[in-house]
């Protein structure tokens, strides 16, 4: 009995420990950019973001003038019980009591610094990165030596608005269109119903790459390229098969007698649909809405092709990719920008996680 209990405890420790390890592993990447986005520009460039946690760092406590102490850098030098050549001192030599001696400066004029390890944190947080990445105007940056550098802002706020203007209609339009179609498939009889639904099922997994070349030709012919309408329609087209399929599954499972009594009362299909079916299907509409929202907000390829030619309509993902391309080393901007781009999806994700999971389980996977 006693050993069984112990085994159970060990087992629980093993399970929880492994899980915790995996969770930490999965969280560290995001944590890294989150922390970095608030760090000072100079700090990011010279030290890892994990320095915000308590760690030990070498700190200079005092200095020794080697020439006053009569040391000769060309030979073996002995300082505070440690001996070594110039090169060894330059790399740093540790003393028996845990200090470190380091030669700084050149051979003729340098000094020896005595350093000791102290616990420290690098907590020099700022909102400047966000200001610069969001702003559209020039941004003044004060270097540590006092000079002022003017850098252009990255106008993420403009891209953010564009992304909203693309994402909201691209989410609502396919849901509306698909809900009408799903209602017709579920509650109306018409010739070609089965064939049309088979087309929906077949198109579920068709890769959207198949459509890009011909649709771009149409858009050029219609002069639609680079407009909001173009990208809404594209996202509607690419999301519609899945939306119709999911909503059909849901709407066709609604109890038949509710509708029948409405029809007996003389309601038209349109009234039944708007007054009865839409409110009843809210959970299914919400799960698909979250999917489509995340998909469109995070999309890069469709935007690149149908909006790519119009810098005024640049979306968040395009803006971010452009910063990666142009200034891939400016981590203070990249981290802040990445976080701005993640803000809305994360809010939606945490706020509506229940619906999101429900949608996943209903098979919300796009072709």
């Amino acid at each position, binding site marked *: 009995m006693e050993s069984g209990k112990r085994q159970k405890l060990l087992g629980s420790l093993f399970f929880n420990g*492994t899980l915790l390890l*995996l969770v930490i592993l999965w969280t560290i990447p995001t944590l890294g950019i989150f922390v970095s986005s608030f760090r000072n520009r100079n700090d990011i460039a010279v030290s890892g973001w994990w320095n915000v946690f308590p760690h030990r760092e070498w700190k200079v406590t005092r200095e020794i003038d080697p020439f006053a102490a009569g040391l000769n850098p060309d030979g073996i030098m002995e300082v505070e019980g440690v001996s070594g050549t110039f090169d060894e001192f330059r790399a740093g030599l540790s003393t028996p009591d845990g200090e470190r001696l380091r030669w700084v400066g050149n051979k003729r004029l340098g000094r020896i610094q005595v350093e000791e390890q102290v616990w420290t944190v690098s907590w020099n947080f700022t909102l400047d990165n966000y200001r610069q990445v969001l702003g559209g105007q020039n941004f003044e940056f004060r270097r540590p030596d006092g000079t002022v550098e003017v850098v252009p802002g990255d106008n993420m706020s403009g891209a953010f608005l*564009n992304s909203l203007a693309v994402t909201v209609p691209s989410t609502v339009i396919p849901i509306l269109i698909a809900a009408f179609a799903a209602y017709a498939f579920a509650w109306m*009889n018409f010739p070609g119903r089965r064939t*049309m*639904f088979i087309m929906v099922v077949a198109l579920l997994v068709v*890769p959207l790459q198949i459509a890009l070349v*011909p649709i771009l030709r149409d858009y050029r012919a219609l002069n639609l390229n680079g*407009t909001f309408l173009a990208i809404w329609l594209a996202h509607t087209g690419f999301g519609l098969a899945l939306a119709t399929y999911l909503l059909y599954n849901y709407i066709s499972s609604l109890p038949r007698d509710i509708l029948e009594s409405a029809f007996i009362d003389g309601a038209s299909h349109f009234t039944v649909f708007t007054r009865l079916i839409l409110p009843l299907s809210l959970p299914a509409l919400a799960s698909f809405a979250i999917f489509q929202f995340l998909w469109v907000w995070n999309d890069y390829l469709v935007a690149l092709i149908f909006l790519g030619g119009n810098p005024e309509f640049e979306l968040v993902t395009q803006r971010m990719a452009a910063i990666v391309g142009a200034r891939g080393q400016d981590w203070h901007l990249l981290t802040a*920008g990445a976080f701005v781009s993640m803000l809305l999806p994360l809010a939606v994700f945490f706020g509506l996680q229940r619906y999101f999971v429900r949608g996943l389980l209903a098979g919300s996977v796009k072709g």
Partner: protein
Amino acid sequence: MKSIKTGEQKLSLAAEVMSLIGRVFLAAVIPLVAFYVLYVGFIFLRDSHASRTVIALVAILWGVGGVAVLYWVFNDIVERLPDPWKSRLLPFVFVGPAMAILAWYLAIPTLRTFWISLFDRNGPPEGLNFFQQLTSDSFVGLSNYAAVFTESLMREAFRNNLLWIIFGSTFSVIFGLIIAVLADRSRIEKTAKSLIFLPMAISFVGASIIWNFIYEYRPVGQPQVGLLNAIVTSLGGQPQAWPQWVAISPWNNLFLIVIVVWLQAGYAMVLFSAALKGIPEEILEASRIDGANEFQIFFQIMIPSIRGTIISVWTTIVIFTLKIFDVVWVMTGGQFGTHVIATQFYRQAFTNRNSGFGAAIAIVLLIAVIPVMYYNLKQFREREAF
């Protein structure tokens, strides 16, 4: 009496004619007004230089409201028709727009893309009919397909995509399964799942930045600000620019594949977790009493009972990795031997403007998903209710 009756009939006839004219008038005016408003909105959106906030708001109102108005208008027109026509046409008002858009954006493009793939870089010459196109100089037959399978960069892309499919899906499934099983018996289940699941909300571009930061490379001697290189150098290793490390090609692709595993494991976990909860507790309890240890339970009971879910998750991630684009495009742009099919498609169709070649690549992608399409259709046919 008689004459009064005909008078009444005349009157009712006149009323009917009037009401018909009224209906036709309304049926014509309402859509015209609706279309005009939508058109004005479109012109405003296309040409206006108002502030972004205004444009964004108008865009949202116009896009969402416009669709609702269109349905309302068409429904209104059909409702005015006499009854047999009404019930015949109404279903098509409901289902028509969806079918038209699906046909325009996905169904017909498969044929059009195939047609384009038979032509040279400019595609089928415009303004010619079918037979003239077929006999024009631009028609190249299947030679684009020959190029797709022989060009060296394409072969590299196929090889890399194979790595993506094999490692991406396998590791996502394995990690998803491990996490689902562990979380199922843990006290921190909810928090753990949320955190593992969180990357699913992050865009590929965002994820690329996150992982670029982990792989950040600084020359030897400088402080490493990238986590991976900091760990490697503190263990005495050499810092590397991991995804760009061509010396280990093609295995440098694994550093990109990790990103997708990080993103997709949460998805796998959610589905597995739900499936695991569906296994009856008595079966697990009974096998524990029979002396099975946790590993035996995992391999001999859990895995067989959720086999269906494992296969469907696996298939989904395979399709997903087959079309992988953003991660590679942002991380390496396909350099350093990391091209995949979708980046080649983009490069050929849009950077090189070689429509024929790009279309041929898209068709290859389509052919790759046909087994899954076939399976979906088979499943649908077996369902009786429709």
